[in-house]
């Protein structure tokens, strides 16, 4: 174990790795602070840049962006009452109150420092849980991988929101797109329409950039209201040591909730942040200050959403199941470099995993320094004119798409998926569900067919093996639980709704 960390440190502490992580964290902070660019979009935009990199360095840079964006998102939350990333939504409540009182520096400082602590703790949690879990996956054969893929698809039900039908349709569309290309078993082309462009399948990186980033830009152009701007200067007085020590309870709550929510499928930073906010209020000595500019009200959600940066990677690294947008982008980067997540990743290429562990720890320190340095320039970042930003991002996306395989096909693909993604956002479909279908389609189909080949066509093979059976039962629960919960809530709400009608 220790040798592996030494191996990881060797990679993570190389000058090039450090430089790329520094760039990643800086871009993450900027991206997070740019209204409309979330952490996952900031990551997706940089995917084409990772091509020539060593896979370990590529993942470290992306993790750096993820970490930086968590702080960047709180800058806009505090200064213009707009969460730059979904994870910063709870920070708006007290952050903006503090800004109005002229205590912006204290709010930003608490977000930065508690976020750094949360991020560092999360690396330890990640190591403590991912390494043993990856051992479990060593016992996996085709039936288990098939069951795992089914479980991954069942997750759609937990983040499809209120509309499960549209979530299912989104997932199916992703699975359908994933079938285009050369059939992995027989080598025959499928759905390539006689051309050669689709022979290698739909490039997932292009689909990801289109669905996540371009769709958001199009929605901003077509629908969104004017952006808020920061007026005048703001105080950059940082919190004092005494003030920080008082936040230990709120941070503890953030760590616990961030760990639990990060592990749960479909949880993600935003939910962890809100739950931590509520719990911190309950445990606080001054609950009355919450909502009126409480530093604890920033510490709890910001610790929690930074804890999620590590814990959200656990299901990804051990089993290859992405539980959030950002994890899905990380998975795309891994696929791009031919790195398959799972136990093989830990055994065959420990330098990648352990490099990432060490790198994430270093990236958190970088965030602390860069975050402090960005306090003053934050005004310029947040106040950038929207037309300039949107046009620049679109140009970056198009050139980046071209660079994927030096041909126009991916450029059209990015535009097409961008338009599709905008339509999906507008009409209540779920983009992450489609991405999940896209990345899991191969896993599910190949292992279904491989399992049935081994069992000579006997479908019971999935139910007679304990791990496979357990995963399928778990998948069933994951699928049904949100439906049951919704039905229960609906029944509870029904009398209220009918009572309101005169």
């Amino acid at each position, binding site marked *: 174990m220790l040798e592996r960390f030494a191996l990881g440190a060797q990679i993570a502490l190389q000058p090039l790795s450090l430089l790329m992580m520094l760039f990643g964290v800086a871009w993450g902070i900027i991206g997070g602070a740019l209204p409309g660019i979330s952490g996952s979009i900031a990551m997706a935009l940089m995917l084409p840049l990772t091509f020539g990199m060593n896979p370990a360095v590529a993942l470290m840079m992306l993790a750096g962006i993820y970490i930086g964006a968590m702080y960047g998102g709180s800058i806009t939350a505090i200064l213009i009452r707009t969460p730059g990333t979904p994870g910063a939504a709870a920070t708006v409540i007290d952050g903006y109150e503090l800004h109005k009182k002229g205590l912006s520096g204290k709010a930003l400082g608490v977000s930065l420092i508690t976020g750094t602590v949360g991020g560092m703790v999360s690396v330890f949690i990640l190591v403590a849980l991912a390494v043993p879990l990856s051992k479990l996956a060593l016992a996996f054969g085709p039936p288990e991988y098939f069951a795992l893929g089914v479980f991954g698809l069942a997750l759609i039900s937990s983040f499809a929101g209120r509309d499960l039908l549209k979530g299912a349709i989104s997932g199916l569309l992703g699975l359908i797109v994933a079938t285009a290309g050369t059939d992995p078993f027989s080598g025959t082309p499928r759905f390539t329409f006689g051309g050669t462009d689709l022979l290698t399948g739909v490039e997932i990186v292009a689909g990801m950039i289109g669905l996540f980033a371009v769709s958001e830009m*199009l929605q901003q*152009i077509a629908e969104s209201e004017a952006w808020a701007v920061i007026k005048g200067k703001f105080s950059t007085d940082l919190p004092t040591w005494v003030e920080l020590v008082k936040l230990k309870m709120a941070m503890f709550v953030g760590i616990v909730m961030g760990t639990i929510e990060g592990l749960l499928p479909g949880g993600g930073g935003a939910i962890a942040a809100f739950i931590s906010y509520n719990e911190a209020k309950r445990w606080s000595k001054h609950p009355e200050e919450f909502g009126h500019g409480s530093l604890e009200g920033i510490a709890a959600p910001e610790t929690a959403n930074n804890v999620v940066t590590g814990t959200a990677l656990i299901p990804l690294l051990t089993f290859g199941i992405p539980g959030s947008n950002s994890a899905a982008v990380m998975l795309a980067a891994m696929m791009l470099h031919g790195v398959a997540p799972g136990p093989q990743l830990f055994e065959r290429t420990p330098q990648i995993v352990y490099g990432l562990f060490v790198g994430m720890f270093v990236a958190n320190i970088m965030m602390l320094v860069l975050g402090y340095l960005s306090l003053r320039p934050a005004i310029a970042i947040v106040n950038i004119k929207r037309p300039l930003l949107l046009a620049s991002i679109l140009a970056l996306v198009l050139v980046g798409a071209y660079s994927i395989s030096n041909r*126009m096909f991916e450029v059209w693909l990015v535009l097409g998926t961008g338009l599709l993604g905008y339509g999906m956002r507008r009409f209540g479909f779920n983009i992450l569900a489609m991405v999940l279908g896209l990345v899991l389609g191969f896993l599910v189909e190949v292992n279904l067919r491989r399992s049935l080949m081994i069992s000579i066509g006997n479908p019971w093979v999935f139910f007679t093996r304990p791990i496979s059976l357990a995963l399928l039962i778990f998948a069933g629960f994951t699928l049904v639980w949100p439906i049951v919960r919704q039905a229960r809530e609906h029944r509870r709400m029904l009398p209220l709704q009918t009572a309101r009608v005169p």
Partner: protein
Amino acid sequence: MRRADLLIGIGLLAFAAFYFQQSFAITVGFAADRLGPTFFPRVLALALAGCAFALIARSVGGRSDPTPLPTVRISLLLWTMTLTIAYVVALSPLGYLIATPLYLAALVWLLGYRSPAGLAGTALGVTAALYLVFARALKVLVPLGPLGR
């Protein structure tokens, strides 16, 4: 959302039918496994058709989400798409270094920013920055058009 859901449902149903029909164009080789390359796509096509039916039934039955959709600046969206498609088409003949600043300037102007200095600065600055990163640092062969000869 009701009418939109109905139209989307019909569109998805048509797509599922098309996808199912296209699965017959796949040549199944001799060495194929039991399920073959057509089984999984056909299951997906049937599942999508089922979901599309459910969506149609839901909107006809009036159980769709009745919340009206946010207003959309459709002409701005169409112009952005037109401009972007024109850029992609022009990229090969004109070359990156000519097409990109023109596209950026036009798009920034279209989106409502009119200061000449900012317009020119963005057009040239972003073009140069992307060129340095992609063509120089990452060695991507961006189309150069007449400038490349």
